[in-house]
């Protein structure tokens, strides 16, 4: 599903700053991969580059999604292909209501892919169901997007969007940071309930604890812009015990 070769990335604003220094990664359909690593190693950059954040510039390498390069695609075109990123720091947007925003997002994808749009009634039903399922305060979600939300509520709102948009590849950028155990479980349930043979997940995390609830197929350790080790779920347990010291020179 996702195939990355020799990916080098720097800052758009400053060519001398190099963050990712040659990443190779293959995430087959239906698999859950975890990207772990110390702070400053490039995890979040990696997630954001996949979504197309303009702050980063790809100097060499390729990113293919379902066999096609997505390097030249803007974020919205990537979303239309079914790529989703849950933000580490969801943005507060005054005056934009989650309901209208998500309806517009779905409509825009339907337009781009030639699918039939949901009627207002169908969408309302889906939205209301998911609000209950994710456990977001129904009054809160009527207000502006993320404005006045606590850290946990913002993360739940990311899961709500994941549930409604039903992407093919979901990138979870440190969705577990700053969450209490209850919120962590909501995030994990969100991911687990959506696991399917034609959907993949990339879980970016510093800690192993989220992986207690979401069992990854593969774990990659990202240090200083490179994947330095890849293994099964046991690798996450190992770094939880011994830390990232051994990878740092």
């Amino acid at each position, binding site marked *: 599903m996702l195939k990355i070769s020799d990916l080098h990335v720097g800052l758009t604003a400053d060519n001398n700053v190099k963050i990712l220094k040659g990443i190779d990664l293959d995430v087959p359909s239906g698999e859950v991969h975890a990207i772990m690593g110390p702070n400053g190693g490039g995890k979040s950059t990696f997630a954001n580059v996949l979504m197309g954040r303009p702050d980063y510039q790809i100097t060499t390498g390729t990113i293919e999604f379902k066999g096609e390069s997505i390097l030249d695609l803007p974020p919205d075109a990537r979303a239309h292909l079914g790529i989703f990123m849950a933000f580490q720091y969801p943005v507060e947007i005054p005056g*934009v209501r989650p309901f209208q925003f998500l309806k517009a997002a779905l409509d825009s994808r339907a337009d781009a892919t030639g699918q039939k749009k949901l009627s207002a009634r169908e969408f309302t039903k889906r939205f209301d169901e998911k609000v209950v399922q994710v456990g977001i305060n129904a009054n809160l979600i009527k207000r502006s997007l993320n404005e006045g939300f606590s850290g946990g509520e913002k993360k739940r709102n990311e899961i709500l969007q994941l549930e409604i948009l039903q992407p093919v590849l979901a990138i979870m950028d440190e969705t577990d940071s700053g969450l209490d155990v209850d919120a962590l479980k909501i995030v994990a349930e969100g991911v687990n309930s959506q696991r399917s043979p034609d959907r993949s997940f990339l879980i970016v995390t510093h800690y192993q604890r989220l992986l207690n609830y979401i069992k990854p197929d593969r774990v990659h350790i990202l240090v200083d812009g490179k994947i330095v080790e890849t293994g099964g779920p046991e690798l996450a347990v190992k770094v939880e015990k011994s830390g990232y010291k051994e990878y740092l020179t």
Partner: protein
Amino acid sequence: MPKHFFPESVKKFHDLLETRKSVPSLGTNIDVLKKIAWDYFSSTGIPLHRRGNELWKYTNLKPLSDTSFTLSSDSDVNVEDIVNEIPWSKDWHNILFINGMYRPDSLGKLDLPSGLSISDFQHNNMWANFGSLAKPNSGTFAALNTVFVQDGISIKIEPDTKIRKPINIIFVVSEVPRNFATFPRVYLDVGENSEATMIESYISLTSHPILTIPVVEIEQHTEAILRHYRIQMENENSFHIGSTRVGQKGSSKFESSTFATGPRIGRNDIHVSLNEPDATCQLHGLYITFGDQQQDNEISTTHSKPSCTSGQFYKGILAGKSTAVFSGDIVVEKGAQKSIADQKDLNLLLSKGVEIDTKPSLEIFADDVQCSHGATAGHIDLNSLFYLQSRGLDFNTAKAMLIRGFADEMIVEFELTELFEFISGLVDDIIPTLQSQSDTIGTT
């Protein structure tokens, strides 16, 4: 000095006045006020000199003073043609002015409840309170209105009366072959312990440069509550210099929301005097400018007595080469202890060519007060844009959503359903123009 030597800008209005010579006198008292006003205006002229003139420092009135206008009493317009262009509901008390002249019952017969009376100046000699709040010599444009006023209405709400339906006053300049100048006048008296909603809208249905110089005086008695809305949306060649003067007695409440867009030069000049204890006022507004428009918001509040609360909160969206001014002033006089006042002005700048001059100012002469102020100016936030795009919205749609989102908290203040839909639709219609005149996002 020869008798008829005036600065150029005065001469123009002098000549305009000459065309009105045949109009009969409105009575000695009014003639006296008009003379005071003319003497004041002819000594100042249109304020073109900006340096050192705080009131006009950031607004260039030369395009106004370079344009010639005519007066009209022509109101021969088919009302059917304009009903879709104005905010109104058949359930409101609708008062229509066409080309500066009051047209009674033109949007359906006024069926006024007891305690509410509306009289027009021309036919009912309702000039008793004329100029009590907007003095004839209190400023260039209050003076010009006093000199030229053609028609106006006086609205009286008796004590202990709750007026359920909004009083909706619409000033329309219709398709005319000339550059019209209109000088409408409204006096509103809200009786003790009474409550009402008033809407003022200024609309043009012509592309000619028109000049609108309205004056609205509002007297609020003890415990009176007034919800006030003001919509300024004439065409992009026009000029609008509006003055609103409000006097509040004890424990009265004035809440105002304004929406300003459109004219080449627009000025929304509101002054509220909190004259007795425990009065409150909130002055809020949204201004949207593009092209080479100038919008000037001259917002001032005076706390004269203790325990009054006031707020000023304006938001601006600027595109193209437009300029805007927020000149907010709150004066807390000596002895006005326990005053609470805050003011802020937030701006979204959509292009490199715009200019915002924002000047929140507090002048405090009492020592036991709670006051704050602030102002910001920023571009579209890149993080927000990326967030919306990452969900599938294209760049333009995401940007439009952020612009609409910025305006939203002001739009929702227009609570009446028909009014909300009118303003909301208007903003949605303007956004593509703003987008086409936008060349900046983020911090670039």
